[in-house]
């Protein structure tokens, strides 16, 4: 039932399937994990890698719209203080999962958690 060329084809295909692996191996590693994107007025202000973050850190963000203080605690991020009126961004609390956002509308300030984890993204995509 099996013929010689079947084996050749199957082995060739298996070898072809490892080409992307080799190409990416040569091109260098791609970082994965979650990161937080801080945007002001739609423009990227800062990108913080969360999955490798340890300990506490506070960032002061002063813009012409106002001031926000952001705290990064291990793998989660939170706005701890803001001089806006409604303080909705503070009440949002800690966020850490990809897709979660904190928005401060008066300051046009937004924190969005994203994931560059290729496997997680592609698997979600394939399962749809």
């Amino acid at each position, binding site marked *: *039932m*099996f*013929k*010689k*060329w*079947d084996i050749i*084809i*199957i082995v060739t*295909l*298996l070898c*072809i*399937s*490892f080409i*992307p*692996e080799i190409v*990416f191996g040569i091109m260098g590693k*791609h970082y994965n994990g979650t990161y937080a994107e801080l945007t002001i007025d739609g423009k990227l202000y800062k990108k913080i890698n969360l999955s490798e973050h340890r300990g506490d850190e506070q960032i002061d963000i002063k813009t012409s719209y106002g001031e926000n203080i952001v705290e990064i605690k291990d793998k989660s991020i939170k706005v701890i203080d803001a001089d806006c009126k409604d303080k909705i961004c503070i009440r949002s609390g800690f966020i850490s999962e990809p897709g979660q956002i904190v928005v401060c509308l008066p300051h046009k300030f937004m924190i969005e958690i994203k994931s560059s984890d*290729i*496997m997680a*993204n*592609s*698997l979600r*995509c*394939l*399962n*749809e």
Partner: protein
Amino acid sequence: MNKTFRIVFIGLLVSQALALYTIESMIPVPFIAPGAKLGLTNLITVVALYMLNSKKDVFLIIILRLFLSTIFGGNLSTLMYGAVGALLSYYAMIFVKNIEKDKISIIGVSAAGAFFHNVGQLIVASVIVQNIAVTLYLPILSIAGIGTGVFIGVTSNFIVKHMSKLPFFNDLNISQ
């Protein structure tokens, strides 16, 4: 092969493919390799490729199967994945079948079809997430795909062997 026979035969193959598709969709997605499927509908494509004279009829079967399976149990994204995968595997199977006519059995053709179906799926996936690194998932998918492809090849080998015994199909190009 007269016109009525052709229409009925294509209709039968499409309906068999749809039945297999429905059965396959009842099988849950394996946890270790999401996106991997048995590829039962490929069985019909391979059988059609070996039993029909014209390649256009095989193409017609694939297109009909794609759209009808979307109506029965699918959505736009399954149509996109299925269409690119099925077309790529169709051309790959024709190519492989024609390289060495007598030296390649159905198993090799079906394994190549399964592999290029996975390649098509990953191309669509990398376009959707806009990240070419999705192709790193190819080895896992292709090992699963080639495995099922071999079994589909063995099965269609039996089908074609038994079909060729029927005097009904004498005028078709059943090569065995």
